[in-house]
Each structure stands twice: as C-alpha cells, then as structure tokens.
C-alpha cells in the first residue's frame, strides 16, 4: 500500500505531459484520459481511506534515511487529514473532469484545458501529501498557476481582468508564504515539517513566532479567500468555466488554504491563544460578510462565489474554536467536536458547492445566461438539473436530511459547549440568510415566472453533465451518514485525531 503513494502525483503528471503531445493524433484522447486518470486516483484514495493502515504513512523519496536523527530527503506524509483531503480532491476532480467532457466542447483549445486540469489536481495532491515545507510551496505554485490559466480560459474581457486580479493577489500571497518559509529556515535550519516541529518546541522566541505566524496566516488566508483577502474570489470563480469554478470553490481553496493553515498551526507551531483568536475573528467575519455580500447578487455564479466565502467562514470558525480550546487547554472533547464539525463541513461544502456550480454551468450551457432575472420556469425542461440544484440548495442551507445540516449542527453545538454563544447565534443567523438567498435562486431560476419564449426549445443537458450532477446529489445524501458514530470513527476521526495530537506530530514521524 505504501508503494502506491507516489502514484497520486505521478499519474496526473504523466497524463498532463502526454495530453498536449498525443491530443491531435488520437481523437478524444485528452477527454477520456483525463477522466480515466481522475477515476484511477479516486479509487486509489478511497482504497487508502478504507484500507485504514496505521497513519501516518511515511514515504522517504529517494530512499534517504535520516543521518544522525536529521531527515535529509523529502518525505510523503499521508495521515488522516491528508487522506481525507485526497478523497475530496480526486472524487470531486473526477466528477468535474467527467462533467467537462461535454461542457468544454463549446470552448477551443480543449487539450490545454485537460492538461491544466491534470496539473492542478497533481499540484493539489502534491500539497496534501507533502511532508516538506518548501515542497509544499512548489506544488502549491503548480496548482495555483494552472488555476490562473484556467480562470482565463474563455479569454473574454471579464475573464482576463479577473485572472489578472487573481494572479496579482495570488503572487503576493505566494511571496508572503515564501518569506515565512525563509524565516522558518533561518530559525530552524531545516525544511522537513516534522523536524521543524521538533526544533520549534525548543524555541522560546515568541516575538519571532508571532511575526512568522502572521505572515503565513496572511499568505494562506489569501489563498483561502478569508475576509480581508477575499477580493479576488468572486471575480475569479464567476468568470471561470463551471467545472473549474466547481473545483476552485469546492477543492482548491480548501486543499491549499485551509489544509495548510490547519497543518501548520496545529501540528508545527505551538498553539497560541491570540493566533487562535485571530483565526476565529477571520472565520466569523468571512461567514457574516460573505452572506451579506451574496444577498444582493443577481449573477448566479457571483452569488455562489460569495456563498463560498461565507461557508468557508463556517469551516474556519469550527477549526478556530478547536484551536482556541486546545490553546487554552480546555475540554478536549469539545475541541475535537469543533474540529470534527469544521472538517465535516469542509467535506460537505466541497460536494454541494461543486454541485451548485455544475448546475449553474448546466443552465449556462443550455440558456447561455447567468443572470437570475433572465431565467425562469426551467424545471419543466431541465428536470435533472432542477432536482439536483434543489438538493444542493437544501444541503447548503442546512435542511435536515442533507449533509449541510449535520455539519453546521456540530459547529453550532461546539460553539455553545465552548461558551461562544455569540458565535453560535451568528452561525444560526447566517444559515437562515443562506436559506433565504437560495430560496431566491430556486424561485427565479427554476420555479418562478413562466418559461420565456426563446427558452421553449431547450432540453436536458447531455449525459456526461447530468451523470456528474446526479452522483454529486447522491453524495449530498450519503455524506450525511458521517454523523453516525460507526462511520464517523472510520472516516472523519482519523483526520481530527491527526490535528488533535498537535505537538507530537514530529515525534511520530521521526520516531524519537
């Protein structure tokens, strides 16, 4: 099982290198290879999830054993959290790739699209499996540069401008992260994450740690589009092709932003109370402002992009509460509940936000418009899209049978138990406003006024698109089973434990 870990990066990379070369020769080669590779990695990650080996799995690249206790090579480290992220990336990646088989037919340069798609997924897999700080930065750059080009895929005036703004903000974020890495190397003289964790335990220099943590929080916060740094997200996610905005909103900002923040701040740095407060404030601000900005939107994809910011606020809030309780040495049970809520919502958000963007893409594919006023009464002509969009809307606004309800429940429960009553009230209010906003979407898009004349002849979207939407809608239901203790222990708890064990991440990996 351990020997298969490099495949997560080799397979998408090999596909990405071959697609531009062989796309012309074999018809449809790029389309089906991309989906095939995504399916293969999805099976691999699900097998890794259910094979349930003893985490963390450590893979020494190049076979370099540590020399007198100091690791000298780059390590792949797959523990509970990274395997959970791998599953989200590859499953949502496969559904988006399968969806784009017919969606991208309307664009030119298809081979470039699939090559960039495979590179983005390879980059994210590399980030999630990285056990080395600089290696995490390099693979973060691969997936981010691929997403810059994918945002500007349609080369319209709006998309170019959105991609330029995204590139400048992303470039700044990468430089802040690089400055953080240089400072950490200057302090700890090593790049291996576990080694940094061990060396940092001995360092009492609080002022240096605060400065570095603020830098890294700013850099990764900008990648995760938390409130003060969210300016690029609505433009980038609304002007990208729909499968790509499903991947961006659903997976990229999580695998790069939230995963890196949780990995660094829980396992590497010593938990600090004011950093935890900053994280909680950022999370709740994102949650509140995201939904208020979203209410006034009439462009469907911009509305969904703003909702991404507010839902990410939930995830950061859950993780932030867990961080604060751990930093204060409070009740471990509540902390693990908060982190479980945060990660569970992260998984759910990847699925239902991806589905909402795919629905928006289906509507755009058939009616050619994204404005809610120009739609109306689509449920007669597009039953599958309206049904899946209804389930996704109910999931995002937290209506019981769907997965969104359970994860928000966990977060609010943890907030109440941890005596953050104000935050719990905010969470409930935001959830209600989200419900109102998505009622508006359903009314205008599907069930509102009668179908306009020129929309008479539209029919349901082709098989590739409807299949992905149906599978995602089913996932919205299936994932709510994660709330039951039996299943939760198997899937969600390893991820929570990998964060809960905090400091001795280093000890476990380097074994001393």
């Amino acid at each position, binding site marked *: 099982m351990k020997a298969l870990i490099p495949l997560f990066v080799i397979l998408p990379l090999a596909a990405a290198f071959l697609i531009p070369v062989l796309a012309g020769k074999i018809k449809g080669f790029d389309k089906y290879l991309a989906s095939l590779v995504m399916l293969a990695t999805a099976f691999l990650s699900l097998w890794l999830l259910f094979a349930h080996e003893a985490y963390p799995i450590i893979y020494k690249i190049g076979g370099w054993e540590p020399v007198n206790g100091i690791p*000298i090579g*780059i390590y792949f480290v797959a523990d509970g959290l990274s395997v959970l992220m791998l599953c989200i990336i590859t499953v949502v990646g496969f559904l988006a790739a399968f969806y784009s088989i017919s969606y991208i037919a309307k664009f030119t340069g298809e081979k470039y699209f699939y090559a960039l798609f495979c*590179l983005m997924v390879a980059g994210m897999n590399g980030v999630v499996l990285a056990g080395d700080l600089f290696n995490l930065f*390099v693979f973060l750059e691969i997936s981010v*540069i691929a997403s810059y080009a994918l945002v500007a895929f349609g080369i319209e005036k709006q998309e170019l401008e959105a991609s330029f703004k995204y590139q400048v903000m992303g470039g700044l974020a990468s430089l802040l992260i690089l400055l953080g890495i240089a400072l950490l190397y200057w302090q700890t*003289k090593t790049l291996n994450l576990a080694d940094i964790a061990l060396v940092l335990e001995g360092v009492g220099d609080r002022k240096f740690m605060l400065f570095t943590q603020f830098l890294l929080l700013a850099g990764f916060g900008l990648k995760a589009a938390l409130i003060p740094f969210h300016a690029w997200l609505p433009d980038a996610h609304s002007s990208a092709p729909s499968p790509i905005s499903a991947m961006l909103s659903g997976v990229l900002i999580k695998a790069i932003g939230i995963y890196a923040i949780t990995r660094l701040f829980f396992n590497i740095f010593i938990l600090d109370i004011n950093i935890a407060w900053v994280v909680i404030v950022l999370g709740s601000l994102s949650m509140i402002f995201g939904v208020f900005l979203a209410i006034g939107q009439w462009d469907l994809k911009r509305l969904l992009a703003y909702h991404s910011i507010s839902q990410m606020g939930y995830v950061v809030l859950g993780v932030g509460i867990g961080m604060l309780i751990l930093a204060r040495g409070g009740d471990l049970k509540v902390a693990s509940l908060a982190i479980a809520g945060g990660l569970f919502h992260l998984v759910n958000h990847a699925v239902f936000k991806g589905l909402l963007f795919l629905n928006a893409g289906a509507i755009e594919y058939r009616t050619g418009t994204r404005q809610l006023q120009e739609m109306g009464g689509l449920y007669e002509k597009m039953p599958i899209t309206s049904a899946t969009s209804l389930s996704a809307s109910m999931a995002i606004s937290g209506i019981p049978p769907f997965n969104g309800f359970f994860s928000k429940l966990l977060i609010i429960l943890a907030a109440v138990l941890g005596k953050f009553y104000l935050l719990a009230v905010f969470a409930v209010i935001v959830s209600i406003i989200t419900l109102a906003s998505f009622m508006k979407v359903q009314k205008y898009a599907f069930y509102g006024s009668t179908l306009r004349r020129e929309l008479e002849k539209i029919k349901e979207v082709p098989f590739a698109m409807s299949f992905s939407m149906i599978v995602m809608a089913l996932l919205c239901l299936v994932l709510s089973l994660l709330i039951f203790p039996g299943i939760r222990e198997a899937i969600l708890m390893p991820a929570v434990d990998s964060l809960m064990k905090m400091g001795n991440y280093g000890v476990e990996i380097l074994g001393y």
Partner: protein
Amino acid sequence: MEYIIGVLLILMIAGSIYTLHAGDLLSAIVSYGIVGFGLVIIFLFLKAPDLAIVQLVVEIITLIIMIAVIRNSSKEDLQESATIKVEGVQYVNLKQLLYFSGAVVLALGLMYYFYQSVSGLDVFGEHEMRMSQVYVEQGAELTGSANLVTGVLLDFRAYDTLGEATILITAVVGILTILRIKGRK
C-alpha cells in the same frame, strides 16, 4: 565584504524606486534590468556562482519578453506625477505627497517590527547548518556530483526539481491557452 553588498543593495533599492516612478515604461524596464544585474553581482559576492548564471540568463530572457510586450503598445504612463504644473509653476501635489509619506512611515514601522522579531536569530555569516550539514560533508560521496548544489537539486531533493520543471510546463501551457486567438467556438 558586507559593506559592498550593503552599498549594492542600496543602489538596487534606489533603482527599483526609480523603476516604479519612471515616466516612460521602457526606462522602467531598463532600470528593472539594472536591479537584476545588481543582484547577479551580489550573488557572486555571496559565493553562489550557480545562482549568478541562472539569474543572469533568466534576467535577459525576461527583459526580452517584457520589451516584446512593450514595443507596440503605449510607452507613456498616465500616473499622477508628484508635482502639478499650474500656469507653468511647479506646485507639489499634496495628495500624492500624503500617500508617499504615509507609505514611508508604514514601511519604517514594518521594518522596525521585522528587526525586533528577527534580532534573536543568527547574525549574517554565523549560520550553523543542521539539514545541510549532511549535504556539505557527505554530499559528494552520497550523490557522486562535485557540484553540491546540483547534488541537492537533482538527488537529495529531486522531487522538488520535478515540481519545478512542472511549474515551467504549467506556465507554458497556460500562456498558450491565454494567447490563443479565439476562446469560444
């Protein structure tokens, strides 16, 4: 030797301030090039010949591409200049001056905070290695390459270099998608 690098660094800062305030884009790019070549000289002083070569050549290619972008487009920059001509008399543009002094004060504050938080670390030159102690002592035997930087790049951290080359491939495919003629069918 530290003073020479300090002087070069101050000249680079002056060059980059001119780059950002130059009226004509072409002179901005040329002064950006000078800052880059200053960096090459500093790399040589810091005993990094590998970097000097790579930085020099990449610098030239970046300049060629930038000038290719500039050549058939607008040369002038519509930036408000710091001084306003009112009937031929130079008045200092107060709004611009306010922004500039605010930026200087903020920069000084950030540098002081940076200096405070970094003062506890190793001074320039006293760098006792931990991870690269092995690279320096056993690098040649373990990898067989005399050039330790290439040894680190292509053997100890070869996976980084695979990521590195993939970044260049991603950039090329990205540029080919952005520069294609028509986006939608």
